């Protein structure tokens, strides 16, 4: 078996004394679409921040392939981070730059491409997310959904090996959310990108997820890991079943 793309061992997350989650153990394989799910406030986004290098774990390790992410030197960590792309919940575009400049920024900083080649790549990435022709718009001139798609174009700028999505479908209409799901799957299929998604949209979870981890806010640890469909079929944990069926099985029992 090959080395998993990301391995998390005994990860404990805390803000000061306030424990968020403890003893997380899971692996993300190459070309997985990995879902981080759980009720609101359970630390999904915090887990994401630990995986992308924004917050140091209280305990435990994160491995990218065989490399220990948090015990590597700063240069090493930055090198790893150049192979990941992140789509933030709000898009997090640089508001003082146009869309083209936003997407060109990582290309200009980390590649030796000429200005014209970069412009071509920018147009291509914007076209991929359905924003062809919006090069010279500022983020504030776009709707929330368009900002999010532009954020995705920027996250994909350097053709990252791993793409992280923080609640990609939040604030999108159902059709756009579906299109985004399709885009995620095609990215995985064509480029072999490993994808990690924080979400609680059941439709997306079942449509695209090939692997997942379920975080529980009450016991402050993970309850299960595995394919969402398999979890629904095989799990005996009432909380997971309740989550994956929108509480319907639970309602049937109690009424």
């Amino acid at each position, binding site marked *: 078996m090959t080395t998993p793309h990301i391995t998390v061992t005994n990860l404990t997350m805390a803000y000061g004394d306030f424990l968020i989650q403890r003893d997380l153990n899971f692996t993300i394989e190459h070309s997985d679409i990995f879902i981080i799910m759980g009720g609101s406030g359970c630390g999904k986004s915090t887990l994401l*921040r630990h995986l*992308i*290098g*924004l917050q140091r774990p209280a305990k435990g390790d994160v491995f990218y392939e065989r490399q220990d992410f948090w015990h590597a030197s700063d240069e090493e960590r*930055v*090198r790893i*981070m*150049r192979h*990941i792309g*992140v789509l*933030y*919940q*709000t898009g*997090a*575009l*640089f*508001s003082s730059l146009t869309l083209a400049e936003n997407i060109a*920024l*990582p290309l*200009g*900083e*980390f590649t030796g491409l000429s200005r014209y080649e970069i412009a071509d790549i920018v147009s291509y990435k914007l076209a991929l997310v359905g924003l062809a022709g919006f090069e010279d718009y500022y983020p504030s001139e776009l709707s929330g959904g368009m900002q999010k798609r532009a954020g995705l174009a*920027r996250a994909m700028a350097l053709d990252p090996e791993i793409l992280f999505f923080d609640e990609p479908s939040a604030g999108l209409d159902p059709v756009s959310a579906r299109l985004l799901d399709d885009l995620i799957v095609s990215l995985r299929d064509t480029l072999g990108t490993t994808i990690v998604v924080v979400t609680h949209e059941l439709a997306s979870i079942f449509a695209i997820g090939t692997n997942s981890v379920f975080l529980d*806010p*009450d016991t402050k640890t993970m309850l299960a890991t595995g394919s969402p469909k398999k979890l629904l079929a095989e799990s005996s944990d009432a909380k997971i079943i309740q989550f994956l069926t929108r509480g319907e099985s639970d309602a049937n029992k109690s009424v």
Partner: protein
Amino acid sequence: MNTAGTASGQVSFIPVDESTVAMKLSGSWSNDASIRPVEQVLAELSAFKNLKLVLLQAHDLAGWDSRLPAYVLKIIDYCQTRHIEADASGLPEGIQALLKLARAVPERAGARRTTQQKSTLAEIGKTVMNGLKDAKGLLAFIGETLLACATLIRGKARFRSIDLFLCIQDAGPSALPIVTLISLLVGLILAFVGAVQLAMFGAQIYIADLVGLGTVREMGALMTAVIMSGRTGAAYAAQLGTMNVNSEIDALKTMGISPMEFLVLPRMLALILMMPLLCLYADLMGMLGGALVTVSAFDVSLIQYYNETQKAVHLTDFSIGLFKSLVFAALIATAGCMRGMQCGRSASAVGDAATAAVVNSIVYIVVADSVITLICDRLGI
């Protein structure tokens, strides 16, 4: 709706047997109705001995909004803590459904924040700890800035030169009008203050010495620093703070670009490059202001004033002023950028960051100025 006279909700108790009481709710329970405080009702309820069951019943409800469910919840909570059963089945179905909904998710243990009376000692301790944390943050920020500068010197810093030029534009030419106005007026004021005293001895000519030395050694640098801390330091804090709120700084980090190099360095460089120039300009404007007053109001010609100034002010004085302005620039940029980078994630945090940036930089400026003046005095320059 009810007329004004009857717009009130009533609560009455009807004892059913010795361990049961029926609580009848009637009348209007909307926002504008007058209703007895729930504490009174609870006090009455506690007067019943051996109570085991409370029957909540509604009678002739004229209308209700969130007040009624909130009231009933309070009563139910009270009953629960005393092991009295509360039966809400006598209430309208809508209210029952809302009560059920409000109880569907139990309060998370430890989620409620309790405010405890803190002792003065604890408050003092907390203030000191916060101060220490602030000092640590400042040291860390200075360290990071120095590292970024080292990267810059090695030629490896990543920032867009266009950003540097924009910052220079913002911290330099755009500030000229206000610097002109303020330093001209400060020169004017200095001249007037000095003239009143010097005219008593017929020594008006020495106004030139006073204004010249005062602006060049002290006021030019100090006034530009105060202007720039309000103008540019606050802007830096607000810009970086907003970027923090919008996750833009996180985005930079995950892109592998150091925000210290990309955002802080161009701002620092711009201010450090521009401040001495602004200071020099302010010096000239201040002396011009002094000359205006002296030439027009006192019997001194422009040539005399010029000659006297040239005699009084030496290159050393200019250098001291310029050195101060360099130090002030570094302090303002540090305070502004640090507060921006440490900003919390809310709209009010951005405001706090801007305020703190201005307050900090003015404190730093005045303290640094005193220290430098003292050192110059000791060294005799």
